[in-house]
C-alpha cells in the first residue's frame, strides 16, 4: 500500500531527537538531532535545523547547522546561511559564499601539475 510521501520524513522545527536516526527514505531536519543520521535517501538540514553527529546519506543539503562528519554518496551542498564544521566527503562539495564553514574536504582529486617541461 503506497502511502503518499511515506518515505519522506520531517523533523519539525520544535522537534528534538537525542539518539540515532537510521533507515530508508528522505529526511528533512527542521528541528534538531543530537546523534548520528544514516539514511539511504537524501538528507536536508533546513534553515533553523541542526544536526550534531555524523551523517551518511545519498545526498546532503545544508542550510542550517551541521557539526559532525558526513559521508555522502552524491553531492553535498552547503548553502549561504549554513554553519558547518567537520569532515565532508561527497562526489562533489559545493559551498555558497555567506556560509560559515570550517571543514575538511576529502574530495577524490589528484592534480598532476609536475614541473613544466623545459623547451629546448
Amino acid at each position, binding site marked *: 500500500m503506497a502511502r503518499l510521501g511515506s518515505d519522506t520524513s520531517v523533523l*519539525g522545527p520544535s522537534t528534538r*531527537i537525542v539518539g540515532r536516526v537510521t533507515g530508508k527514505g528522505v529526511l528533512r531536519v527542521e528541528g534538531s538531532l543530537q546523534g548520528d543520521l544514516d539514511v539511504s535517501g537524501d538528507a536536508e538540514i533546513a534553515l533553523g535545523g541542526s544536526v550534531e553527529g555524523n551523517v551518511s546519506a545519498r545526498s546532503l543539503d545544508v542550510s542550517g547547522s551541521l557539526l559532525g562528519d558526513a559521508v555522502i554518496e552524491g553531492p553535498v551542498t552547503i548553502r549561504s546561511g549554513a554553519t558547518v564544521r567537520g569532515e565532508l566527503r561527497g562526489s562533489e562539495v559545493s559551498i555558497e559564499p555567506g556560509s560559515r564553514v570550517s571543514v575538511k574536504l576529502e574530495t577524490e582529486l589528484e592534480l598532476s601539475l609536475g614541473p613544466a617541461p623545459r623547451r629546448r
Partner: protein
Amino acid sequence: MSGTVIGEGLSIEGELTSEEEVIIHGNVRGKVTSSDAVSIAAGGIVQADIAGHSVSIAGQVTGDVSAPDRVDIQAGGRLVGDVKASRFTIADGASFKGAVDMEV
C-alpha cells in the same frame, strides 16, 4: 506545514521531544513526548512511553501512554502498556493489554 513525520522506512533509537504534531509510520524505540497530538500510523512500531496532548494508535505500541486529552486505539492497532487519559476508546478490532486510569 509544520509537523513531524517519521516515514515508514525510518527508525529512531532515542528520545523524541516536540511541540508539534507527531505522526509515526516507522520505528521508534525510546521515548516520545509532545505537547501536541501524537499518532502512530498503521505500520508504525513503537517501543516507548508516549506522552502527547492526545494519542491515536493504529500501529503497534509497547509502552505506557498518557495524554491530558484522549487516547484512542484504532481498528488494527495494538497497545501493550498502561493508559492514563481523561478519555479512552478501543475500537472494534483493536488489541489492548494494560491498566487504565481515566483520572476519575
